[in-house]
Structure formats: structure tokens, C-alpha cells
């Protein structure tokens, strides 16, 4: 099974570094990538950050206590008398917001919605991209023209304008929900994946073993999933990782503009919007969510960069 | 140093000695350690003479001439020993300005792949004219006119129009002619041709070699021809230097060398050239592959591939000795035994 997903086990694929040096040493594509990755300190920095943010999103109780209880359903320890306290080591590490809620707890809980939107939007983007890119590259012809021209068209509208229009169209009378934002962001990113995946398909389609598999009567579905998909895993993974970081940033931007997440969600973008007119006197309301937002976004972008360098034979 | 370098045999044409490379050793500092690219290399070139430096890729033949042109990147490259003299003037520790003055105007060079060696975004005529403008301070129109003349001289038809074209609009042979025109611009005394025909079609190869010979006859310049192609050597070279793993393994005048190479590696090269030997047509290749510069074998570097290797070859590096039966020299323990 591992063999099927290892591009280097097949001849003629540019992704695998093959030269005289690996004679006698059965190196694999992923093994080589790992050997390169583990020597990079930026890889370890970004991995650490990603682990922190993922655990923060999944198990916030590891970072915030006491957890939400019947007495304090939000878990934010709000006391109206404590409004806009500054950060202190003794009580509220990151201070409190206008409602007197603990800002550290809020910033921590903010990770969940950011990462959820980022994950699902990226899944939608990559899924649509692979499906449409695969169809366009494999079948070509008219289908390819339609898909490729539509993808070109998506590039023609600025991303944010597109997101705003799609969000306006999705929003119903019940108000906006998290999945609206996820779908809006996810439905705009696929053209880049289509370009990436379509060119991979076009390359791999020409390879002899794929031609041979076709001649032997393998179905189109089998060829697409068993032969073409594994070759596109590395670049798609790089794209998806960087996309996670970008979506975190886009979601916060939309929320800041007031057209993103519902106003009652705990999200860094919403926090920044609320903070934006109180910055002068309560700087902590700006700095803490900003720090988390940049760190989370940067972690994924950095990881993507490191993966790209590890996968790209030109950097080896 | 166990090596003794023999005095190189007098050149065949009695022209002025232009280049003298003496005991040259060039190393590269790499992550995996220090790599000796060229070791104890010695040769000379006289005016009007053609010297062929023969060897496989990685044998150090290109590094040696790029060193004398000052073209190896430093670091990682370093000259650790030896000297290179042009008309008696030392080049190894010459100033950058001095080297620039010699490059192009005294010693010119052409390369293996003329497409990548020409700048894709400038017109061919402009790139040739640049020589006159930089070295001679010629005006734009004067430089252009001389560039077109040069292109005509190297046999580019319709030169005035082609001067206004870009390298990608030229065929491979025409590109190499343009490179030659550029190299000849300032009437250099020495032309170094680094595998000038390797990237070209067989029919074009012959035309380019003919052109080089013709120019040499007209100008009397010295020609250093770096190649792995014995066929090229046979037709044009006066003398031959055979390199293996960064070392000179055989030198000598071309004709006797061609008739009876002394070193087993040179013999192997000769046998790998297709030719008619009486009734038989035979083609052999040398078994094995050249050693990596990092993992150099002890003793004679060629011993793992040598059909005549004896115990001594595994332990002791052979000295370079003059041949007894003809002019020239070879580095082999068993010289003259077979």
C-alpha cells in the first residue's frame, strides 16, 4: 500500500530526486523529504505552533481553567465591574474586554472557529480543485475549455470582492452562520488547485506506465485515483498547508469588515473589530488577538514553505 | 610529492609559447569535504598550435581551463598550487582588472551549449558589439558594423539581418558561429573551445571544426580544444593531453599517440571509437565508471577499471615518465610493457 503512494518507486517521475548518489540506498520520496525537513529549525518552529493551536482548538480546557460550568456557561469569567482591565500576572493574564470577560480565555477559545473554518474551507477548495482539475486534465477537449476558462474567470474578480458577493448571496433572513463563511471562502480558492492539478494530470497521463495501464483496460477512475492522484499529493499538500494560513487571515478580515462570522462568535476577527475603536486606551484588546492570529496564520504558511522546499528536487 | 613532472616536449610548430600551465592543482570545498578537481596539471601552448585536452566528463578538463580564465567560482574553488602563465605573465594571483583585460581580448573562450551561453534577451549583434564597446570604447554604430563583419567572416549568411535577431531565432550551428564571432572580436592570441561541437548535429560539427581550423590558419592563434571525442582530436590536434580523475595520464604529439596510445585508459578510449580495423568492425567500452572525486581510489585512480592492473597499481600512484619509444609521456607503472 505504501508503494502505491510512493512516486519515487516508479520510473520517470520528476518529483523524485533520482541521481547516481542514491544507488545502493533505497531512498523514498517521503523519506528524502523527511530527512530534509528534520534538519530545518523553521520546520520545528512551525510544527510546534501548529500543535499548540490544534490542541487549543480541540481541547481548550488544557489551556483555560476552570472550564465552562453551569455558573459560567461561556467559561469567560465575565464580571461587568471588571471592564477593560489591563493585563496582569495575578488575575487576568491578557486583561479583560468591555464586558469584563477574561481576554485570555476568549483569545484561546478563538482558535477553534478559526481553525475549523480554515480546515473545512481548505477541504472544499482542494476537493473541488482535484475533482475539476482531474476532469479537465484527463478528458481535455470541451470539458477542459469550460473548466479552465471558468477558473480563469475566478481569478478576474478580486478575492475579497468575490467573498463579499458570495456571502451576501448565501446569507438568509436567519442571519449569517459559520458555514456560510466557510463555503464562501472555500468556493473561491479552487481555481488555483485546478491549475496545479490539471498540469500534473497532463504530465502523468503521458507516462508509459499510465499508458500501459490504460492499454491493459484499467478504468478511468482507477487511473485517476491509483496513478494520477499519488503524483499530485505533494504539491497539493503544500498548497493546502499554505491555504490554511491564508484562510485564517481571510476569515479574520471578513469578520473584521463585519461580513464574516456571526457577531456573537468568539473569533479573533470579531475581537479585533470590537477592539478597533478602543485601541488608544486599551491596546491589549488589539495586541493579543493580533499575536494569535499572526502566529496561527504564519505557522501554516511557514510549514507550507518548508514542505515545498523539502518536496521540490530543485532545492535538494 | 612523489610525482615528478617531465619537461613537456617542444611544441611542433616553433611559435611563441603563449600559455604555460605548471603543476596546477585546483580544489573545491564542498559539504562532503575537499574535492581535488585538477591535480598537478602541466601543459603548454604555442602560437599556431592546437592542443586537445581529452577526457570524460568530471575528469577536470573543463575546470583546468576555467581556472586559467578566472571563471571558477571562488569560493568554493581554490588554486592550491602551481602557476598559469600567459606570455610569461602569472595569472593565478593576477588582479581582477588584469584578468579582465586578458579575458576576451587575449584569451577568448567558446562553450559547449551556445544557446545557454548567449544572453536570451539581447540581440546577437549587440552581444558581439559589446566586445568592441567595452574593450575598445567603440561607438555604437562602429561596434555594430564590426559585429556584422565578424558574423560574415564566420560564415553567417545575411549577417546584417541576423545581427538584429535574438539567440533563440538561430539554429544550433549558427549560434556556435555567433559565439565564435564574439570570441574572435578582439583578435585573441588564444582560443579555448570547451566541447564546442558536443551539442551540435554531426554534420554541423564538422563545419564548426573546419571553421575553427580555417580561422587558426588565418590568424595563427593557439587553440585549446577540450573534448571527449577522439574523432575530433584525430582530425585537428597537434598535441594531446589525456586526463583521468583530475590528473594527466598521457601527453604527446597527436599522430604517434593516435597510432599507439601508451596509457591503458587512452587505449580504452581508442577502442571505444567505432572504426574499421581491416576486416573487423569492433567497438568496446571501458568497463566501470569514473571514480567520484570524493572517493578517489588509492594508487593509480584508473586501477579499478584497468585490464592490466597489478598489485603495485593498488598502492602506489604512478609517476609521470617520458616514453622511450616516441615523444610524449605517460603515468603508468607498466608503461612499455604492453
Amino acid at each position, binding site marked *: 500500500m505504501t508503494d502505491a503512494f510512493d512516486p519515487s518507486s516508479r520510473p520517470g517521475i520528476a518529483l523524485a530526486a533520482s541521481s547516481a548518489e542514491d544507488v545502493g540506498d533505497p531512498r523514498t520520496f517521503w523519506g528524502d523529504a523527511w530527512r530534509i525537513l528534520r534538519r530545518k529549525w523553521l520546520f520545528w518552529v512551525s510544527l510546534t505552533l501548529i500543535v499548540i493551536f490544534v490542541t487549543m482548538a480541540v481541547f481548550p480546557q488544557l489551556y483555560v481553567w476552570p472550564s465552562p460550568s453551569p455558573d459560567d456557561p461561556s467559561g469567560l469569567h465575565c464580571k461587568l465591574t471588571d471592564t477593560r482591565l489591563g493585563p496582569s500576572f495575578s488575575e487576568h493574564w491578557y486583561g479583560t474586554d468591555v464586558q469584563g470577560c477574561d481576554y485570555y480565555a476568549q483569545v484561546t477559545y478563538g482558535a477553534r472557529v478559526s481553525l475549523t473554518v480554515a480546515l473545512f474551507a481548505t477541504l472544499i477548495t482542494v476537493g473541488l480543485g482535484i475533482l475539476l482539475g482531474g476532469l479537465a486534465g484527463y478528458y481535455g477537449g470541451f470539458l477542459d475549455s469550460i473548466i479552465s476558462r471558468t477558473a480563469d474567470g475566478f481569478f478576474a474578480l478580486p478575492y475579497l*470582492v468575490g467573498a463579499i458577493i458570495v456571502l451576501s448571496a448565501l446569507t438568509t433572513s436567519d442571519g449569517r452562520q459559520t458555514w456560510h463563511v466557510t463555503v464562501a471562502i472555500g468556493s473561491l480558492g479552487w481555481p488555483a488547485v485546478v491549475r496545479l492539478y490539471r498540469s500534473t494530470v497532463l504530465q502523468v497521463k503521458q507516462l508509459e506506465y499510465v499508458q500501459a495501464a490504460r492499454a491493459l483496460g484499467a478504468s478511468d477512475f482507477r487511473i485517476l485515483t491509483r496513478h494520477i492522484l499519488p503524483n499530485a499529493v505533494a504539491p497539493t499538500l503544500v498548497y493546502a498547508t499554505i491555504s490554511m494560513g491564508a484562510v485564517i487571515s481571510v476569515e479574520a478580515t471578513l469578520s473584521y469588515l463585519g461580513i464574516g462570522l456571526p457577531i456573537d462568535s468568539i473569533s479573533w476577527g470579531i475581537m*479585533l473589530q470590537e477592539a478597533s475603536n478602543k485601541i488608544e486606551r486599551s491596546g491589549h484588546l488589539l495586541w493579543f488577538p493580533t499575536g494569535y492570529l499572526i502566529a496561527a496564520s504564519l505557522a501554516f504558511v511557514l510549514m507550507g514553505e518548508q514542505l515545498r522546499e523539502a518536496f521540490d528536487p530543485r532545492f535538494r | 610529492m612523489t610525482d615528478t613532472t617531465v619537461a613537456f616536449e617542444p611544441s611542433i610548430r616553433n611559435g611563441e609559447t603563449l600559455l604555460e600551465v605548471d603543476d596546477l592543482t585546483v580544489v573545491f570545498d564542498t559539504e562532503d569535504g575537499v574535492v581535488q578537481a585538477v591535480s598537478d596539471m602541466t601543459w603548454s601552448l604555442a602560437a599556431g598550435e592546437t592542443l586537445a585536452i581529452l577526457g570524460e566528463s568530471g575528469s577536470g578538463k573543463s575546470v583546468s581551463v576555467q581556472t586559467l580564465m578566472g571563471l571558477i567560482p571562488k569560493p568554493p574553488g581554490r588554486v592550491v598550487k602551481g602557476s598559469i602563465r600567459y606570455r610569461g605573465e602569472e595569472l593565478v594571483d593576477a588582479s581582477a582588472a588584469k584578468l579582465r583585460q586578458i579575458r576576451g581580448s587575449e584569451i577568448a573562450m567558446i562553450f559547449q551549449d551556445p544557446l545557454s551561453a548567449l544572453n536570451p534577451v539581447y540581440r546577437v549583434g549587440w552581444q558581439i558589439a559589446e566586445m568592441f564597446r567595452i574593450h575598445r570604447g567603440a561607438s555604437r554604430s562602429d561596434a555594430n558594423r564590426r559585429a556584422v563583419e565578424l558574423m560574415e567572416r564566420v560564415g553567417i549568411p545575411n549577417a546584417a539581418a541576423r545581427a538584429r535577431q535574438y539567440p533563440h531565432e538561430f539554429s544550433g550551428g549558427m549560434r556556435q558561429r555567433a559565439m565564435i564571432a564574439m570570441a574572435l572580436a578582439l583578435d585573441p592570441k588564444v582560443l579555448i573551445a570547451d566541447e564546442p561541437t558536443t551539442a551540435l548535429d554531426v554534420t554541423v560539427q564538422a563545419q564548426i571544426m573546419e571553421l575553427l581550423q580555417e580561422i587558426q590558419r588565418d590568424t595563427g592563434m593557439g587553440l585549446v580544444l577540450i573534448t571527449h571525442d577522439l574523432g575530433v582530436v584525430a582530425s585537428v590536434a597537434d598535441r594531446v593531453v589525456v586526463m583521468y580523475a583530475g590528473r594527466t595520464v598521457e601527453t604527446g604529439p597527436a599522430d604517434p599517440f593516435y597510432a599507439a596510445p601508451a596509457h591503458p585508459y587512452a587505449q580504452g578510449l581508442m577502442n571505444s571509437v567505432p572504426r574499421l580495423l581491416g576486416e573487423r568492425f569492433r567497438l568496446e567500452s571501458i568497463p566501470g565508471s569514473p571514480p567520484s572525486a570524493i572517493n578517489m581510489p588509492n594508487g593509480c585512480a584508473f586501477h579499478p577499471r584497468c585490464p592490466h592492473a597489478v598489485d603495485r597499481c593498488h598502492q602506489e600512484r604512478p609517476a609521470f615518465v617520458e616514453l622511450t619509444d616516441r615523444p610524449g609521456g605517460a603515468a603508468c607503472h607498466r608503461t612499455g610493457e604492453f
Partner: protein
Amino acid sequence: MFRYFIRRVIQLIPVFFITTALIFIVIRLIPGDPIQAQFGERRVPENLRAAYEARYHFNEPLWKQYFLYMGDVLTFDLGESVASQRPINDLFREALPRSATLAGMAIALQAVIAIPLGIAMARTKDRFFDNMSLVVTLVALAIPVFVLGLVAQTTIGLQLGWLPISYDQSLKSFVLPAVVLAVTSTAVTARLMRTTLLEVGREDYLRTARAKGLSESRTFRVHALRNALIPVVTVLAIDLGALLGGAIVTEQIFNIPGIGFQITRAIQNRDNTIITGISVFLVMAYLIVNLVVDMLYAWLDPRIRYD
């Protein structure tokens, strides 16, 4: 060159129609009745409704509305606002110069900083300056523009009081937003400059230039930089085109009534004809800029022309 131009124009036509049709459909999907929106809670009188429908073709089938609108667009008429009944062209006449001023300043900053920075990074490859710059530019890449805007407003604008924090028609009030807008793209461009210079640095024609006896400085300026600038200039042109269409976030934060500002306001007011008009303009601007960039590329890199 001319044939290449014509071929590119022909390729752009279907993209234009697909994109504008998609925009048209999605905007029609925005919930709510645009006519009702003009009357708030009041009931729309029947005769007025009929007048609106006739004027804006709201009663026609969607495809027919699209073609009627495209007919206007091809005569450079982007329609008029439902709310104010002002021609959208007038709106552009006011908003476009503001967005263009902002874009011009941002691109100038980007070019002036990114190109020397990229050159310095390439020349110190893998040394301290290069590594530091790589990390700093990467961080700059990850910071959302609105965060930069807020931070710049607070620190440079309010606390230091060096520059205006809001649009007051003076050129000075464009400086801070231009800086904010330039940060991300400068980081991208500097990294691109570094990468292409390092790639060009391995090219054989630089060895030829040295073999010709050219000085290191001429080899770098005339032979290396000229080639390495091709993708960088292209990116600058693309960025300029993108910014001409307005910077939504920056214009919002600094209250610049440019195109990006107008589209956010139109969304809030549910003024669908303005949203459509601006979107169609943005698509046209993008396609024209891309055409210009392709021509620029072909002009800078002679290998492209006859391919």
C-alpha cells in the same frame, strides 16, 4: 507581436463573458428585493414598481437582463444606481482617481523597497542579512492588511501623530494607507527578486559575460539583473492592476472613498446595480491589465514573442 496580441484578446473574450455572467447570477441570488429596499418598510406603490422594473429590466428573464446590460457595458455605460439613480460612471469618475493615487503610491513604494532588498538578499545568500530578511518578509506576508492598518493607525497616526489617519483630500493622507498596502506585496516581490536573481546567477550566459572580460558590475547590471527583473516587473504590473480596483480593507480603515470603499457601501445598502457595475469594471480592469502584462512580458523577454 500583433498576431500574438490578437490571439490573447480572443482568449480573453470567453473569460470576460463567463465571469460577468457568474457575477450577474450570484448577485441576483442575493436575498431581498432591490426595489423594496429603496422604500424601507413602506409598501411599494404599484405604478412605481412598474416604473422601476421597466427602467432596470427587473421584469425580464435573467439571460435577457444580462444581454441588455452587456449591450450597455460594451458602449462603456455601467448602468446607474437603484438607490440614487446616479450613473455609475459618475461614481467612477470620483472614486477611481482616489484608488489610483493610492495604488500608484503603494506600487512606487513596493518597487523602490523590494528590488534593492531582493538584490541585497541574493547577494548575501544564506548569510545573516538574507536569513533575517527571509523571516521578516515571511512574517509580513502572514499579517492581514487590516491588522497592519489598525496598528499603523494607532502607532504612527495617533501615538506619534506623524501622518493623518483618515482621508482629508490631501496627498499626505494617502501616505499611511499606501505604506500599509505596500507591506505584503513588498515582501512577496523582494522574495521573488531574490529567487530569480539566484536562478539567473546559475545561467551560462553570465559565464560568457565574464569570459568576454566584462566587469563584475557590468555582468550583474546588464546581463543578470536585466533577466531577473522580467518576472518582478510583471508582478509589479499585476499588483498595480489589482490595486486600481480599490483596496477594500485599506480604504475602509482610512476612510478613503475609492472604489473599494464604494463596493462595501453598496453591499451594506443592497444597491445591487452598483455591486454589479463595480464587479464588471474590476473584471474588465483585470483582463486589460493581464493583456498589458502579457505584452510587457513579450517585450521584455524576446523568447515569448513567436511561441
